[in-house]
């Protein structure tokens, strides 16, 4: 397969995944913003921080929902905005059209113009509907890929791109929010912050799954365990790493070569394995998150290098 094709498929999947992640974060931010009291006013700022979009607002200025719609929904220059992600996903897909099935292409092709000509205030008014629409489009695309795409190398590159982006989103969320998950005694201001904890789970659509695994009570140790090392929850870092390992192994078989990226993904896997049963929390959540972020960044570079992107 052409290296450029592999690269386009990898990035197409990353941008689609990112569009969906941004959509989930906006939902989380909205939920926090309507909570009573002023404690969560700054929630939008964390959302901007997770998506690396803080530079689009004045430091210290209050952030409105309209700002969010403008920056995270519509801004074509912000690589995290849903509009930018959809346009870029489509452009990547268009360059490798012959590697996509008709259904995948149609799903991608129908998505890209929804936000054109929409003003920030209009977008604000239909925000929930727009967010739902983004999630639906992503599901249609994934469904088309799941049932129709040949499992050749192209599928592996696409799957790896999606898993990498998803792992990084979870890691960035934990990176920005780690302070709310510090052991209770250390929480600034003291006391349990029920809302903050659940907000993290909401952002990853994991609240029900969490209850299935850990029962009714929330605890920072369980939440970090769930999001980092649980191998069954599809938005956990461990699950995404499993996926990447599996697809990278397929590529190694097909190409007959194990490269640096294979070693790195194994290292991340080991790191998470050692973090089971609360160990990651004991060792220091923030350090683990930072280390994982660094290693996944390195992994992305090594994949590009190994397959001549």
């Amino acid at each position: 397969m052409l290296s450029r094709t592999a690269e386009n498929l990898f990035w197409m999947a990353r941008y689609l995944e990112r569009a969906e992640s941004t959509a989930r974060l906006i939902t989380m931010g909205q939920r926090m913003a309507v909570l009573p009291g002023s404690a969560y006013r700054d929630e939008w700022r964390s959302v901007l921080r997770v998506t690396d979009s803080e530079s689009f607002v004045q430091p210290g200025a209050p952030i409105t929902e309209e700002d969010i719609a403008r920056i995270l929904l519509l801004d074509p220059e912000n690589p995290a905005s849903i509009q930018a992600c959809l346009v870029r996903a489509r452009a990547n897909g268009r360059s490798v059209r012959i590697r996509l099935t008709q259904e995948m292409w149609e799903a991608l092709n129908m998505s890209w113009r929804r936000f054109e000509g929409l003003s920030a205030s209009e977008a604000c008014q239909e925000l929930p509907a727009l967010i739902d629409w983004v999630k639906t489009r992503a599901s249609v695309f994934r469904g088309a890929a799941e049932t129709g795409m040949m499992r050749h190398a192209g599928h592996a590159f696409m799957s790896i791109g999606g898993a990498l982006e998803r792992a990084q989103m979870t890691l960035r969320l934990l990176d920005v929010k780690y302070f709310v998950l510090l052991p209770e005694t250390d929480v600034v201001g003291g006391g349990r912050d029920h809302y903050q904890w659940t907000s993290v789970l909401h952002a990853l659509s994991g609240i029900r799954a969490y209850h299935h695994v850990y029962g009714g009570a929330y605890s920072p140790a369980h939440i970090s365990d769930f999001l980092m090392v649980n191998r069954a929850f599809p938005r956990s870092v461990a699950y995404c790493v499993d996926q990447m390992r599996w697809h990278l192994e397929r590529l190694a078989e097909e190409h007959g070569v194990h490269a640096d990226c294979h070693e790195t993904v194994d290292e991340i896997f080991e790191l998470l394995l050692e973090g089971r049963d609360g160990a990651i929390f004991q060792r220091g959540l923030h350090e683990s998150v930072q280390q994982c972020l660094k290693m996944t960044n390195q992994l992305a570079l090594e994949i590009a290098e190994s397959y001549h992107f």
Partner: protein
Amino acid sequence: MSFFEMHDQEGAIRSCYADVKRWIDETGIAGLHRRLEEAEAIFRRIGITFAVYGEGGDPERLIPFDLLPRVFSRLEWERLDRGIRQRAQALNAFLFDVYHRGEILRAGLIPQDLVYQNPAFRPEMIGFDPPGRVYSHIVGIDIVRTGPTAFEVLEDNCRTPSGVSYMLENREIMTRMFPGLFAKGMVTPVDNYPALLLQTLKEVAPPACKGDPVVVLLTPGSLNSAYYEHSFLADLMGIELVEPVDLFVENDRVWMKTTAGPRAVDVIYRRIDDDYLDPLVFRPDSLLGVPGLFHAYRAGGVTLCSAPGAGIADDKAIYVYVPEMIRFYLGEEPILANIPTWQCGTETGLAHVLAHLPELVAKEVHGSGGYGMLIGPKASPEEIAAYAERIKANPGGFIAQPTLDLSTVPTLGEAGVVGRHADFRPFCLVGKQMRLVPGGLTRVALTEGSLVVNSSQGGGVKDTWVLRN
């Protein structure tokens, strides 16, 4: 009164249109309009679009599709088929000649300057023998009809003629939506075109190729107006669609960058102009292209289809001499006539054109896509005067032809079937042998009376049938 292809001179339905006529009556005009909307929705979803340079607006505009097929009888096609092959053969013979001894020039049949001073002539190609001595592997010949038995060639396209994807997609959509029309097996299929194209390309593999040739399609990229066609053809042939950045040259061979490392390429079906092929040879300022590609080509490491410099054969100034080429190289009389053409570069031509400009169609020799032309009978006196000044400033840059009474084909109008002017582009494949699928692209001017069929100027497309008998 133009010849309406659906009717004979007495106004009765011509037998080749009998099935189409019955289908129109059965479906009804309202029914056809409903089905047309369905067809357009399908085209849009699939993403068959055509971008037009320099027009702004929607970069991925849909080409209008007309539901009513254009029909050729078997006898009509047999004549077209022979005429097209004859022309494709003569054009390739001409290309070999002008890049070798130039016999036709020595014989005084074509002025030397017209060839050697032509920007489409590539001195770099002199003395080189491309595999199979083929220069133009896909010859698209634009044909118009002016009467029941009168077919004329409007122009030749020897470089990288586009539009074949519409021929295939138009048929595909018609078969999908109206299977009943094809059930009797009267319409000859065209869907083997990609297989024939691949066969043709493999036949011209370079000397360095051992084993099954690796063929790729080289596209300028997804922003190119014909990108859809590039990806469509690559897909149907099962070959890689590459961009210049995917290729590099080493040891006189061309390699594509793959996830498993470099892989040798034998034949490149390039959909990219000569100028942008190789910055070392053609345009040093070009950021596109594959450095060293031309050298690898001349060294026999790769085959370029079409060959650089093939454009000299489809130049509008050379067009006039194609009948001479057919007589000179093949010893035959042309089966398809040329349109009478005055060259402003000659003294008599210039005088005639300036005196008769209001009745003529004048074109730039190097223009394409229907731009920069003047349709005398439809132009205002001011436009004509301005155009005359342009001709006087550079006579060699212009030709003129009489305004033709083009035939019209049945087209779906608001209230019923109407006649609209159309042309026809078949695609002749030239490898070790010549191949021609029975059909081509019919472009239709959707505005009443309009003669401009270019898709960049509001023309549409329709399915073209060649009947078995």
